[in-house]
């Protein structure tokens, strides 16, 4: 809400600086987001008198003016056809104009110019703001104007405008007058009422127009007044300047009056030209399904039966509270106008405005909600302005169709209750005086009960907590002293196991050298094609947004890998030679589509790396390191996922459950992401991993005798995997086997076609004694026999 201080001053005396006023408003709940000084839009533009004007010696279209700026005469070269003796405005050397342009003294075709003559735009005004100002002309001042003063100030363009943020619970304060009331509270002073003063003619409004309201739920009150013999002209300079200051373009006296009242009182108004109200009738009714109306902006709207329309005897003439019809506007020859001042249900206006995609200052105001008192007040204020500007003859009386309503709402409370909410002492007399200042009288009931009589305009106040807030925002939050649960019981608190597990996983991955990243939860639906996800895959069943920021951010992801690949490629193309990253985030899986219940949100872990030492085994090693820390054992089997390198990808399982994959991204897929490096990734279902984790460590005895190592190389078929061989060795029954690992794989002519030699190292140990040669030989025999049985392994010669 833009509030010119001069306008506020109509109702409240303000004797503090704009900055101080802003501070005071913030303290009672009105954030001031900006302070604009009109006169500071341009600097160093001064009133001046052109003492003498001569032709430029070298240019026919230029003139050289000796310019008096009050006690000093400077020389200005101009292309404006000025004459000696004229009063105007000049930007001096060093001036900064409203458009940011800086003025410097310099020579124009060989003649020194120490400034530039200015028009209204140069100081941030518009020609139409100033009476008698011609478009495209420089500023003009009457003879005798004091020279050397600030040109904007001389024109009265020196308001200071506060940009006040009004919270949604205070719709009433979207008006200068109601805001002035709050200013009065903030400054601890009083507020004056806007003037209501006009005379009426013998004509009766009821003879001119009739009003029928068919839906009083959507239109609880409809008031109308009539003005005859209307004269249309530009409204007074002050009104135009004020409207422009709050961002409204002045049009003519009638339209400007409706906008002025909207801004000042907060009541949207509409002026109908009686000629276009067929039958002199106004009918407020639901639109008929499919009924058309062309609005002022030229748009053809199709209305539905849930929308409210203002109609004449035949047709809709306005979308109620949103916008008038094309013929409802004021014409130069308009002679009788009907002012509409109505209250419409805010949710209905909101729905209609959104459905038709029509916005106006009125609909914006109605959506926030207006109170019952404003219609009459607004109407009277508009008629006052009609009288003040001599815009027409006011018919007597109002049309007023309204439902019954309570003007005052009573809220009972005690100071003890307020004190209990706030945690500070509440002096009763101060409480009562603060509420009174806010326009809420308080009376005493039996015992300690107080009753606040809340006016209709304060629809936000309906309970003790609201009274507490009204009190404390004026009394001051600094009266509240910090306590730590002074009156309540201890609670245990704590972190649920699944969240603690996630935190541990994050810390372990960081310890393994990975950097955590966080990416958007929504992405482009094209990810599924990029990753070559099959058409029938559940990964293609996603939740879609109806109003995304663009297609690229329109579906909730079902997999994290895509986002990780994007991050890897972003890094690769931003001077980072290597990266190893992880993210833990949710994927979203609808149970049914369209969504009719909350979807499943599954927590996943994705890791990704490229460059440096990154390869399949580095990625796998991260998972193994993580599994070690979690006391689980991962199993890896060749994977056929479509986005993985066909020979470098594994499905990862824990306790026989597949929980994800690890591998090199298929080069064709990497190309889709414009990667010029090899990408490695893994994605695991964190929820399942959590469920499969059995907890922590249990001590296992280790031997004080030296372990014995033995190597064994066997020849097996190419298709036999190291993982299967190790598992077979571990299950061979060698009880003193401490560890088994593959340390070399050799292929070559001596081994034979389709075969490979796998070299393994075993470590044996006993906690009871030093193992003997015979014992070890026995163990090796068991191992070899297991390998022979399972893989037809032969000892390498």
């Amino acid at each position, binding site marked *: 809400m833009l509030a010119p201080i001069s306008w506020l001053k109509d109702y409240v005396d303000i004797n503090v600086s704009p900055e101080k006023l802003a501070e005071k408003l913030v303290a009672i709940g009105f954030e001031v987001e900006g302070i604009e000084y009109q006169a500071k839009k341009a600097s160093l533009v001064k009133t001046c008198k052109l003492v003498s004007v001569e032709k430029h010696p070298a240019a026919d279209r230029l003139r050289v003016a000796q310019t008096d700026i009050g006690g000093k005469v400077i020389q200005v070269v101009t292309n404006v056809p000025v004459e000696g003796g004229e009063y105007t405005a000049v930007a001096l050397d060093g001036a900064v104009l409203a458009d940011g342009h800086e003025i410097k003294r310099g020579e124009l075709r060989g003649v020194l110019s120490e400034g530039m003559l200015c028009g209204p735009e140069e100081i941030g005004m518009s020609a139409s703001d100033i009476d008698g100002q011609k478009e495209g002309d420089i500023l003009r001042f009457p003879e005798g104007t004091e020279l050397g003063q600030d040109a904007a100030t001389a024109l009265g363009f020196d308001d200071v405008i506060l940009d006040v943020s009004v919270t949604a619970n205070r719709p009433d304060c979207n008006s200068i007058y109601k805001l002035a009331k709050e200013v009065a509270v903030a400054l601890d002073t009083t507020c004056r009422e806007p003037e209501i003063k006009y005379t009426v003619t013998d004509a009766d409004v009821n003879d001119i127009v009739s009003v029928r309201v068919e839906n009083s739920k959507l239109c609880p009150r409809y008031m109308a007044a009539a003005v005859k013999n209307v004269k249309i002209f530009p409204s007074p300079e002050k009104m135009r300047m004020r409207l422009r200051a709050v961002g409204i373009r002045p049009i003519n006296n009638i339209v400007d009056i409706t906008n002025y009242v909207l801004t000042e009182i907060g009541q949207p108004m509409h002026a109908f030209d009686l000629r276009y109200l067929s039958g002199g009738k106004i009918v407020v009714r639901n639109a008929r399904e499919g009924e058309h109306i062309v609005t002022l902006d030229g748009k053809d709207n199709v209305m539905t039966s849930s929308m409210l329309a203002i109609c004449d005897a035949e047709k809709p003439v306005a979308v109620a509270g949103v916008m008038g019809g094309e013929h409802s506007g004021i014409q130069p020859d308009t002679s009788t106008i009907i002012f509409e001042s109505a209250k419409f249900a805010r949710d209905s206006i909101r729905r209609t405005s959104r459905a038709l995609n029509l916005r106006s200052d009125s609909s914006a105001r109605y959506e926030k909600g207006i109170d019952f008192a404003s219609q009459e007040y607004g109407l009277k204020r508009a008629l006052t302005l009609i009288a003040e500007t001599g815009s027409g003859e006011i018919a007597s009386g109002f049309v007023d169709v309204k439902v019954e309503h309570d003007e005052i709402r009573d809220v009972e409370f005690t100071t003890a209750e307020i004190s209990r909410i706030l945690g500070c002492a509440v002096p009763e007399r101060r409480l009562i005086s603060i509420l009174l200042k806010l326009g809420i009288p308080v009376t005493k009931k039996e015992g300690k009960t107080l009753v606040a009589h809340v006016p209709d305009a304060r629809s936000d106040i309906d309970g003790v907590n609201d009274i507490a807030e009204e009190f404390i925002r004026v009394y001051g939050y600094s009266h509240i002293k910090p306590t730590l649960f002074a009156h*309540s019981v201890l609670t245990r608190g704590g972190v649920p196991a699944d969240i603690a597990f996630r935190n541990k996983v994050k810390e372990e991955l960081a310890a393994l050298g990975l950097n*955590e990243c966080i990416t958007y939860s929504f992405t482009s639906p094209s990810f599924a094609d990029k990753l070559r996800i099959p058409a029938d895959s559940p990964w293609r069943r996603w939740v879609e947004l109806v109003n995304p920021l663009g297609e690229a951010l329109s579906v909730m992801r079902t997999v994290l890998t895509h986002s990780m690949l994007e991050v890897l490629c972003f890094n690769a193309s931003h001077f980072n030679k290597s990266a190893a990253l992880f993210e833990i985030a949710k994927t979203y899986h609808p149970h049914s589509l369209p969504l009719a219940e909350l979807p499943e949100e599954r927590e996943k872990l994705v890791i990704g790396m490229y460059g440096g030492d990154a390869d399949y085994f580095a990625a796998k090693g991260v998972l193994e390191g993580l599994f070690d820390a979690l006391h689980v054992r991962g199993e890896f089997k060749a994977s056929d996922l479509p986005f993985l390198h066909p020979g470098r990808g594994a499905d990862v399982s824990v306790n026989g459950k597949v929980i994800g994959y690890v591998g090199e991204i298929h080069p064709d897929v990497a190309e889709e992401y414009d990667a010029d490096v090899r990408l490695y990734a893994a994605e695991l279902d964190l929820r399942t991993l959590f469920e499969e984790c059995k907890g922590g460590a249990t001590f296992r005895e280790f031997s004080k005798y030296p372990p014995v190592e033995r190597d064994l190389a066997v020849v097996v078929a190419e298709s036999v995997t190291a993982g299967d061989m190790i598992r077979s060795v571990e299950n061979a029954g060698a009880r003193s086997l401490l560890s088994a690992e593959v340390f070399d794989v050799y292929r070559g002519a001596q081994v034979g076609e389709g075969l490979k030699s796998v070299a393994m190292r075993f470590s044996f140990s006993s906690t009871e004694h030093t193992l003997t040669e015979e014992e070890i030989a026995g163990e090796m025999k068991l191992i070899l026999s297991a390998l022979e049985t399972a893989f037809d392994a032969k000892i390498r010669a």
Partner: protein
Amino acid sequence: MKAQIQSIKQAALAAVEAASTTQELGEVRVRFLGKSGEMTSLMKGLGALSKEERPEMGKVMNEARTEIESALEKKIAEVNAREKAERLAAEAVDVTLPGKKPARGTLHPITRVREDIVKVFLGMGFEVAEGPEIESDLYNFQLLNVPKDHPARDMQDTFYVNDSYVLRTHTSPMQARMMTTRKPPIRVVIPGRVYRSDDDASHSPIFHQIEGLAIDKHITLGDLEGCLTAFAQQMFSRDTQIRLRPSYFPFTEPSVEVDVTCAICGGKGCRVCKGTGWVEILGAGVVNPTVLDMCGIDSKVYGGFAFGLGLERIAMIKYGIPNIKLFYENDVRFLRQFNGEVEK
């Protein structure tokens, strides 16, 4: 024979003197004192001497041998010391060359801030909970006192899935979820991702909040201030002060904005706090009785407070991060900077 002994002794001492390495000294020992060394050979000749001469010659010979041995030991010690010194000198490294650092990962600054904040509230008896990110209109709005077509819906730009489901615009729906499923006393903090249809220089369509909720029989706005003061002092500095300003949220009444003294200038006024000395960090208030009643908690008996804060904002203040976009680009040059800090 005496002369012979003397001569061998002289020769041996000279050889010891001349030797300069452990190896040469070993050779000297063998040559003179070894099994077939010169001195040993001479000793074997003792038997040929007369009974009277033998003791004296033996004594002389032993003395010579001892002398050689002691010279040898001394020299060996010298050479060892020198050789060790030379070896160590040769092993010297340029201590300014880089060390062998194990790869060290980092947690995202949002995670760090989140855990820092959670820790503060765990200490005050709060539990941690999380909730769905795709949320029903009922929980995201209606139970928080924001009916359909209410102007307060304009406070947040919402991503819709359909008429009944949205991407949660705040972590507040978990307030309603906690209140509808738990009995007081409730003290909980709820961190998580939230979504708003807003994407410009200072907004990200995805960001993170932490919600706080405390419900009990007698909780005051003073308790809220105490809790948030403890939080602010832990997050920023021991001297940090907070200030409450009136504001509006549909689900709290009274509602406040909470400012902290500017961490950059300590409250004197600077560019970060726009000269005010205060930086806004969160919204809070007394839980609206309407919300309590809608969620099945008797507002005549129970009350409480709630607050919600943006993690990005806290991280930006704490680490001096200039732009919210940096959190989601995930450039490793950004991510690698946040490897924890020492609490003071």
